[in-house]
């Protein structure tokens, strides 16, 4: 058991899976000698060699496309898009092949690959380095989309993603890469994909979040408890697709009031689906309009404005109060 950052925890997951299974390969830009620009793949090339830890040319479509071929061959490629904002270069390979090859070949070729990508804002990065377009992937049948919220679940989810027989888009919130440490067991730990978790109990309000926003949401929940005497239940999605709506719709039936938080753009964003599920499954229990606290429909601004772009604790609290007071 060690106190690890999310980066270290992800590295542990990769290392242990590579150790366990020689069909696990890592590929991407700068993942080898450099150890990944965020150091997630640090040291892997020394341990497993350049055949298994592959520094690639700058070519996202080929990284994903070659991974599809490797996966069909029976390997388990874990490929990296250096930032999620560059994954659009590979969108056709993701949508048209990674997500479809099992289906197209009627089960002959599964595609057990993971596409890792740092995503989200908050680390003062350049343009395109702070994107949250998880909807592109979550709206694509055949994919799974996983977004951890801390070192321990990041590690356990990545292990599950690697072992999953289907393609998983694994989006890593940059903001929590090094923001805090958590105890991460040395021994194997997995979390089933497709299950959300309740992080905080409460009966007055339901708050749904994931990734880096979970922490701001939790802070907001504490503030609400302290300042308003309101106990919010906070749910961490962990897997965005397939979306586990069992917890948040159940919670909403108890609380009647819901806030959804994400740093993706508002319109046609993830919260829309969550609201739709709430309406479908908990309509008669809703006492107020579901509040969406999201980034606005603007391109992520250069970093001087990024904290203004992202939902912050104040905005989440304000959204919660609107839901509570409506």
């Amino acid at each position: 058991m060690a106190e690890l950052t999310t980066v270290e925890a992800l590295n542990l997951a990769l290392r242990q899976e590579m150790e366990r299974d020689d069909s696990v390969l890592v590929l991407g830009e700068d993942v080898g000698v450099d150890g990944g620009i965020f150091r997630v793949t640090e040291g892997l090339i020394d341990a497993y060699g350049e055949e298994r830890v592959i520094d690639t040319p700058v070519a996202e479509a080929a990284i994903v496309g070659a991974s599809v071929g490797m996966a069909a061959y029976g390997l388990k490629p874990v490929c990296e898009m250096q930032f999620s904002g560059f994954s659009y270069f590979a969108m056709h390979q993701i949508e048209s092949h990674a997500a479809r090859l099992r289906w197209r070949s009627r089960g002959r070729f599964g595609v057990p690959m993971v596409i890792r990508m740092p995503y989200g804002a908050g680390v003062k990065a350049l343009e395109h380095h702070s994107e949250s377009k998880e909807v592109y992937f979550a709206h694509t049948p055949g994919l799974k989309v996983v977004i951890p919220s801390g070192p321990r679940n990041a590690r356990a989810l990545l292990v599950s993603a690697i072992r999953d027989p289907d393609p998983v888009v694994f989006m890593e919130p940059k903001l929590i890469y090094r923001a805090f440490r958590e105890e991460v067991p040395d021994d194997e730990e997995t979390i089933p994909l497709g299950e959300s978790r309740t992080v905080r109990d409460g009966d007055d309000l339901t708050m749904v979040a994931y990734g880096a926003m979970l922490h701001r949401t939790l802070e907001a929940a504490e503030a609400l408890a302290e300042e308003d005497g309101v106990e919010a239940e906070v749910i961490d999605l962990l897997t965005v697709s397939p979306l586990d709506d069992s917890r948040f719709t159940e919670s909403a039936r108890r609380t009647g009031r819901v806030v959804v938080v994400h740093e993706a753009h508002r319109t046609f964003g993830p919260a829309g689906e969550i609201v739709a599920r709430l309406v479908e499954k908990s309509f008669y229990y809703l006492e107020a309009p579901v509040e969406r606290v999201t980034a606005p429909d603007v391109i992520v601004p250069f970093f001087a404005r990024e904290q203004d772009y992202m939902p912050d604790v104040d905005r989440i609290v304000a959204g919660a109060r609107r839901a509570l007071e409506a």
Partner: protein
Amino acid sequence: MPRETIELPYEVERLTILGEDGEVDEELVPDLDDDTLLRFHRTMLLARRFDERLLKLQRQGRIGTFAPVSGQEAAQIGSAACLEEADWMVPSFRETAAALWRGTPASALVLYAAGYNEGAAIPEDAHDFPIAIPVASQIPHAVGLAYGSKYRDAGEVVLVYFGDGATSEGDFHEALNFAGTYGTPNVFLCQNNHWAISVPRETQTAAKTLAQKGLAYGIPGIQVDGNDVLAVYAATREAVERARSGEGATLVECVTYRLSVHTTADDPSKYRDEEEVEEWKKRDPITRLQTYLESRDLLSEEDVDDLEEEIAGEVEKAWEEAEKRMEELGDPADMFDHHYAETPPHLEAQRERWTDG
């Protein structure tokens, strides 16, 4: 020091063995036994007749859009024939002849054209990829497969088909560059059939040949008379051997011609002259091989008649089998199948709800 020419280890050759008149360059004729030559001929003819039959079925509205192979049989058979069973074949969307050679049942191809997903099913052990429609997008897969073969030291070679139009896509470029970098056992087989739907080869790229594009990736390129099954075989064979012996990838450009429509949704009279087609009909790869086999007394007119009859029966049977399969595939709820190894709950729920109406 000043302005000097850089020595490039590069040369593009053009290979023809079997001339348009059926004459051969004896020195270059590859070592192929009579049976194999006859199998070439038979599969080429089967592909042609099958194509014709599909066209009719399409015109009758019994199947949907498909991409005829007519004219490209030599390019496909000559190349596919170089593969071992354990080697991998990665097609685009026009590889009917290659698929038949590799053992894909013709009925599966009919089923595909009739709009049934099951027509794309790949048998458990087959090392064939399903049809890939997005142009050039299958090329990176071939590199990934080849990487797998190399990593596992399996000795399997991966041959991927694509067209002249495909060489313009970014995926072509990225994939060949990967292959150059990693020395993967790939054969990149470009069927330059002169057209990408309505766009002629000259608009596709200003390069004189497509073969020369290999230079960009440090891999050899060769141009072959794609209607000459012997030349295609010889060149691909070399490429397969290079790949198998660990020397890396090769780009083979087969210069051929699409004698028919692009797909059944296409009307070539909009963009090309019938004369051009007539010119190319004279270079028909099947006639050319047939003349050669006749000249070697391996085939008689009678043999061909028998063969035609046999093939007609085979094609008919394929259609009947496909029709039967279509009836069996009665349940449209099968559209929910095969998205994941295990269907997730939300999809199960959707299937149930869908089935309830």
